[in-house]
């Protein structure tokens, strides 16, 4: 079985700027994959090459085994892309927009599927309104719907929830998850790392056009072993305990193993202090992301 997306030695040079610097990546069919990185890391350039919006300088990219340059018709039919910018055609209604997009992909009668998408994205009552009159969130939903009109096996979402309300996020992720369960491969870029942590099975982190980390979300999270205890004490702890001052008068204890916690609590009691409140914090993807990007 061919990979949903295979990228080999991908380089993109924009005059003085090397946006992609030799990317190798393989995403399996049916995966929910996250593509993370700071601004300018090359995420959108990579997606643009996959969608045929940008020509690669060197290297090769395939969607479902079809080369994006040589076999562009089949590779584009296999891909649905939600662009980052909120773009729309002001001449048409949401339904007209979706019918036209179906036609561009060679599908003439697509109303049943269009109605299905409109329904699942909460757009049915707005279907016959001109795109100009829709709110930002509704326009974003239409963009997602456009990417899905031709039932592509691979769906790429470039920051689809940027600037949208909680309601849309939940509706959108519910629908995308159901598509993923049906076998669609989903590739997501987002700045909301908690979304990536919750949704993605595997994650690639990009920095300056290179893949600096590629692993399952679970493995990435386990890379960082530090736990934190945030303590509220009834006095100032002695310096030799090694507690760091936290927000709101709290004290932070950083430890590797839970076995270290009890000795510290004992030492605090011996110093004549009482723990009034304690909160434990697990490392999240944001910590891992910050550490990887800082150290790579």
């Amino acid at each position, binding site marked *: 079985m061919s990979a949903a997306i295979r990228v080999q030695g991908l380089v993109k040079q*924009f005059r003085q700027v090397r946006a992609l610097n030799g990317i190798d990546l393989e995403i399996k069919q049916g995966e929910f994959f996250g593509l993370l990185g700071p601004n300018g890391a090359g995420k959108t350039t990579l997606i*643009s090459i996959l*969608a*045929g*919006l*940008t*020509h690669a300088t060197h290297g090769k990219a395939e969607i479902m085994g079809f080369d994006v340059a040589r076999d*562009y*018709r*089949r590779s*584009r*039919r296999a*891909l649905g*892309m939600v*662009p980052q*910018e909120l*773009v*729309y*055609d*002001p*001449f*048409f209604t949401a339904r*007209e927009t979706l019918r*036209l*997009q*179906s*036609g*561009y*992909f*060679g*599908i*003439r009668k697509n109303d049943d599927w269009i109605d299905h998408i409109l329904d699942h994205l909460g757009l049915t009552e707005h279907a016959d309104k001109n795109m100009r009159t829709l709110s930002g969130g509704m326009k974003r939903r239409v963009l997602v719907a*456009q990417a899905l009109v031709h039932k592509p096996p691979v769906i790429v979402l470039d920051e689809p929830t940027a600037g949208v309300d909680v309601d849309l996020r939940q509706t959108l992720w519910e629908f995308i998850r159901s598509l993923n369960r049906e076998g669609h491969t989903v590739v997501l870029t987002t700045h909301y790392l908690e979304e990536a942590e919750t949704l993605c099975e595997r994650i690639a982190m990009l920095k300056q056009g290179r893949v600096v980390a590629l692993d399952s979300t679970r493995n990435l999270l386990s890379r960082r072993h530090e736990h934190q205890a945030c303590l509220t004490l009834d006095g100032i702890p002695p310096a030799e305990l090694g507690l760091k001052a936290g927000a709101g008068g709290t004290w932070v204890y950083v430890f590797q193993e839970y076995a270290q916690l009890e000795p510290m609590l004992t030492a605090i009691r011996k110093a004549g202090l009482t723990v009034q409140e304690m909160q434990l914090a697990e490392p999240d993807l944001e910590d891992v992301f910050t550490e990887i990007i800082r150290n790579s």
Partner: protein
Amino acid sequence: MTAFSTLLYKELLRFWKVAFQTVLAPVITAMLYLLIFSHVLEERVQVYPGISYTTFLVPGLIMMSMLQNAFANSSSSLIQSKITGNIVFVLVAPLSYLEFFAAYMLASVIRGVVVGIGVGLVTVWFTELPLMHPVWLVFFTALSTGILAALGIIAGMWAEKFDQLAAFQNFLIMPLTFLSGVFYSIHSLPDFWQAASHWNPVFYMIDGFRWGFFGLSDIPPATSLLVVAVCFVAISGFTLLLLKRGYKLRH
């Protein structure tokens, strides 16, 4: 074929939804030209024997309106799509550059013809137009509007803002169409401008089109058709080359 026909349909729908601006306005403009010029010059100028100035003027006005609107259609559609970003919907679709070219060109040709028919219908109240060689009219119409449609595609691809498109239109297209013999015969010009007019491809479009109505022209119609056909092939070929490379569309 569905992808091509959808893009063509979308382009037709786009101009039809704003037909007041894209069809009615140029028809009214042409009518105003006709009113003013025929009122001022009807009794003073006779270009061809037996043909009134108003009658002489009509074919040139029809062709000029068709050309300007064929150019406006493809150029404005492309630059609007580029600036608003919705060109991405077409670029991610499995359309070839040939289909892209054909859809934009055909839609522009159709808009030009619709405007041309509109101008022709309005002029019925002013003069009775003979129709000597209708087949030639079809050839000149198709090739000439095709050339301007292709130029519109080039301008739409090249321009990054409306200002640049306006410059293309005002400093190239407008002078070429106005200085092409729409309002006069080039024989009435001084020698230098007569010679200069022969370097203007729009002159051949207007002259050949007029021959289709009157059977009279400044130069042989076959020569005009040849020049227009060569221009069509050359400009279309250049446009296709740019589209194949994704000039200013795909980075």
